[in-house]
């Protein structure tokens, strides 16, 4: 059913349609509306049987999910930012144990300085945790991805993280088509765990593995994650039969004859597409590649989507300090030999506007783009701070000074 609904609520509805049995959660902006809605559905009995647990921390929440999932319960949680980092140890553990937990990450920056607004720093920091990472462009896609995520997770015994941009998507009210319960039930059979804590057939889960087998365990985990790419088209097809919408690991947009292509993840793709449409109208051969599955990284699909591109710009919503792009490295590996620029944009909630994107693309097309560009960087502020830093050479929070500068003080 199609409705005008907040993204968080839509995701909560989608999750509820998947009949999770245990939902542990710890509140963190901008994930709160999702778990609030779920707690309400559990309390009202609309989602039954399901246990909603107010965890004492994100670490606790993921740990509760681990226990719940290992006992054979379909388990879901949501978090963001610092919360994801606080979960980090448990994330690796859930993945290592092959527990098919599904989690929403309402993407948000990581402090310090503390920042509650959207970027991808959080999820990117956990890209090697062994979780499957799927990024939603819109709330509709977020909904579809969640339904897909449970099926994918449980079929392959892997945890799946659905990443949706905090506030930008979670708090946006827009039309979303939710599948019906019967359809979801048909798509998503009851959870049959590969391994389960059960007195009927006891096993020991979580052995200590030494040098003699650890490499093999890791290799198998890698192979298992790659299976996601094999399995995804079929499952997406099944889901498309239900929803009429098809999810792909990689979605090219107007790439056919594009010699400059922007690669991006998440909600910025919408603004990018509008920008590309605009430039196309002006005759510039530009395109967009949206990456939905970042882990496992769809190397072949990305390579295929970029096959005709002469220039590639990777629009990053996170920064690997000291290197620059994060996604860029994977794109480069997929398409070696093609000029690949990194544009870091929208950190900490800075709006990524069509105007800025347009200017950046024009630069790209004109080969004026630096290998690493910070979109809309306030040059004046950073130059002043750098000059000051060079003069005083002291440690301390640059952020304080910048804020002071922005407030108009300037020292």
């Amino acid at each position, binding site marked *: 059913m199609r409705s*005008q609904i907040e993204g968080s609520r839509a995701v909560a509805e989608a999750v509820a349609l998947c009949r999770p049995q245990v939902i542990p959660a710890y509140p963190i902006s901008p994930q709160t509306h999702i778990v609030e809605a779920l707690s309400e559905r559990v309390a009202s009995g609309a989602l039954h049987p399901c246990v909603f647990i107010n965890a004492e921390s994100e670490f606790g929440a993921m740990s509760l999910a681990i226990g719940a999932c290992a006992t054979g319960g379909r388990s879901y949680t949501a978090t963001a930012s610092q919360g994801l980092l606080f979960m980090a140890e448990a994330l690796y553990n859930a993945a290592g144990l092959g527990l098919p937990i599904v989690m929403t990450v309402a993407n948000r920056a990581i402090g310090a300085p503390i920042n509650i607004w959207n970027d991808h720093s959080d999820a990117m920091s956990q890209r090697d945790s062994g979780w499957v990472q799927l990024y939603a462009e819109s709330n509709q896609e977020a909904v579809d991805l969640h339904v897909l995520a449970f099926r994918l997770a449980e079929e392959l015994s892997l945890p799946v993280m659905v990443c949706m941009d905090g506030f930008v998507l979670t708090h946006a*009210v*827009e039309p979303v088509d939710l599948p019906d319960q019967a359809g979801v039930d048909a798509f998503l059979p009851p959870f049959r765990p590969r391994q389960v804590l059960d007195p009927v057939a006891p096993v020991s889960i979580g052995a200590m593995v030494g040098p003699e087998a650890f490499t093999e365990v890791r290799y198998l985990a890698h192979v298992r994650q790659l299976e996601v790419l094999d399995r995804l088209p079929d499952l997406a097809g099944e889901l498309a039969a239900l929803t009429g919408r098809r999810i792909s690991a990689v979605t090219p947009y107007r790439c056919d004859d594009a010699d400059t292509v922007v690669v991006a993840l998440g909600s910025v793709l919408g603004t990018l597409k509008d920008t590309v449409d605009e430039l196309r109208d002006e005759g510039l051969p530009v395109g967009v590649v949206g990456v939905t599955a970042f882990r496992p990284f769809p190397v072949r699909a990305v390579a295929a989507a970029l096959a005709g591109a002469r220039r590639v710009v990777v629009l990053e919503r996170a920064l690997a300090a000291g290197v620059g792009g994060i996604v860029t490295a994977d794109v480069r590996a997929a398409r070696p030999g093609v000029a690949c620029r990194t544009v870091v944009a929208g950190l900490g909630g800075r709006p990524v506007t069509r105007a800025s994107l347009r200017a950046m693309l024009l630069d790209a097309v004109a080969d004026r783009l630096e290998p690493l560009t910070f979109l809309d960087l306030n040059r004046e502020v950073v130059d002043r701070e750098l000059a000051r830093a060079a003069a005083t050479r002291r440690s301390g929070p640059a952020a304080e000074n910048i804020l002071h500068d922005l407030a108009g003080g300037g020292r």
Partner: protein
Amino acid sequence: MFAVRIHGRGGQGVVTAAELLSVAAFTEGRHAQAFPSFGSERTGAPVVAFCRIDTRPIRTREPIAIADCVIVQDPTLLRHVDVLAGLRPAGSVLVNWAGPVDQLELPPGAVAVAATQLALRHVGRPVPNAALLGGFAALTGQVRLESVLDAIRGRFPASLAAANVAAAQEAYDLVRAECEERQDA
């Protein structure tokens, strides 16, 4: 694409207003996107919410810089916030104000409606958002009053919805009368 920006204070239902507006547009078969200014502001702080309405799917996610309409839920904001920033030259302004609108130094097209008074009278609490949406429907014609009233009914429990519907209806009537009066003038 029709872009609306709503200014208010935390706790005044600014976000709800944007959402209800988007729902009203949605019920009319159009595409709409409502979203708040993403901040950590607490009750009383100036806040903004946005609503885009279009006949095509809305993909862009940038904040509304160029607005077709600005709704000001709290006139005291006018002293602190540049509510008119990015307003299209022919853009509409709807302000919650019980007095004559020309006291407010707003563009000539600005319309005032005493939404707080209407809310107090109908709802019993100073929540001007529903009334302002009624006024918006009358002022811009972007959504029908009935769509606004349906959105309100879909959002609130029956008695509260009825009170808000009454406030919206009355605001609609007042603004419509005002607009007609101006047109006539």
